[in-house]
């Protein structure tokens, strides 16, 4: 195969000297930005899902594929799911001694029942954590119902309600995605024990 390889940059990085020439920066259409999707991770079986961040992606399925390595390449995890940011309904955020549930009014519309996953923010600066799900006819109704079910006796500064049927879950057979080689320890600090080598070196210096 004939390959046209250009050397445009003189670099210490052999990868860079192999980069092909690209033209001048063309003025581009605003926003080649994709959609945003929120990522939720379950650290251990039986533990609640927790919000970890977002990815840019064109579709829910692509978001799932990209979220997997972006958020769970290192820490142990049993499952993840993703949802379009627009499918997360968000309550107002409160502070001090006011719970976000106090701002949810009973004045809501309702429709045919659907399942909503409920997330709560227990402390500003921390992650939103899943507390369970409710059957409701609208997001507001879901939050209203969640108040009695999950809101009693604790401070909640923000509530999210997510329609279950909008979520891309990890299927049971996909759970082996996180069964990987034990050799993958190379991503953990614990795999770099230089202590013995250092000690041996220091001993040698003394002589």
């Amino acid at each position: 195969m004939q390959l046209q390889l250009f050397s445009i940059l003189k670099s210490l990085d052999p990868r860079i000297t192999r980069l092909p020439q690209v033209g001048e920066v063309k003025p581009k259409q605003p926003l080649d930005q994709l959609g945003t999707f929120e990522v939720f991770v379950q650290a251990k079986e039986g533990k609640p899902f927790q919000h970890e961040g977002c990815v840019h992606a064109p579709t829910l399925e692509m978001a799932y594929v990209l979220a997997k390595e972006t958020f769970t390449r290192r820490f142990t995890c049993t499952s993840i799911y993703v949802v379009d940011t627009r499918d997360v309904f968000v309550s107002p955020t409160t502070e001090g001694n006011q719970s976000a549930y106090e701002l949810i009014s009973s004045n809501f519309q309702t429709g045919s029942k659907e399942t909503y996953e409920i997330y709560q923010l227990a402390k500003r600066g921390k992650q939103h954590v899943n507390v369970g799900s409710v059957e409701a006819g609208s997001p507001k109704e879901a939050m209203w119902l969640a108040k009695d079910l999950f809101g009693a006796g604790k401070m909640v500064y923000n509530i999210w309600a997510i329609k279950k049927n909008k979520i891309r879950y990890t299927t049971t057979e996909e759970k082996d995605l996180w069964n990987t080689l034990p050799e993958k320890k190379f991503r953990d600090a614990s795999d770099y024990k230089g202590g013995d080598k250092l000690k041996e070196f220091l001993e040698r210096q003394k002589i």
Partner: protein
Amino acid sequence: MHTEALKELLYKIADDLLIIGHRNSEWTGLGPLLEEDIAFSSMAQDKIGQSYVVFQMLNNLGEQAPDTVAFTRNANQFHNCQLVELPNQEYDFSLIRHFLFDTADALRWEMLSHSTYEPLAQLAKKIKGELRYHTMHANTWVKQLGSATEESISRLQNSLNVAMPYALGIFEESPFEDEIISAGIFAGEQELKNRWLKKVEEVINQTQLNLPDLKIITPLVGGRVGKHTEHLQPLLDEMSEVFRIDPTAEW
């Protein structure tokens, strides 16, 4: 106990994984999208990690240590197929290669999970999750870009046409083919190729891409017996540049 045949099999598996992992790692920090940059790098790391374990198996069969074998041989001692040593080129080619190679790789390990050679069967089970991700990633991307814009479709089509003769080189048969099959170590390249074709077709049929007519393609073989393109030796020289400063030193 079929040692020579087994070694031949292990070398080609290990070399494939090392070289494709190396090539794909070149994208790190230069990918088309941050999230994809991360995903591609993870898969490259998986491949290198897997090759390391196979080189350890070889070590147990009397071959030299993984670092020595990987970092000091010359191109004509490598058994990888030529597909994996080709330069990355643009993302379309890297993606198509990843799709064609990983489809075969996942099927190979699926077959190896039934191997009578216990270490291979065990490794096959351990890396099942990694392989699931690699094929899921490849299929999702090929389906997406293979039915998107005129440019993406024609880029992927061109890369598919260029890569196909090399991809068929994955299935170059070994002189020990009959022995390996009858000993139940591996069901053979021909069987693998048949399964591969079915999977590749299944995905390509869900896109606007056309699978090149395999009847008129001559597979580019030779990699398995140490015949390589002009791209492999420079890759190896680069990979071992630091290691060769002092191969006896610990780095």
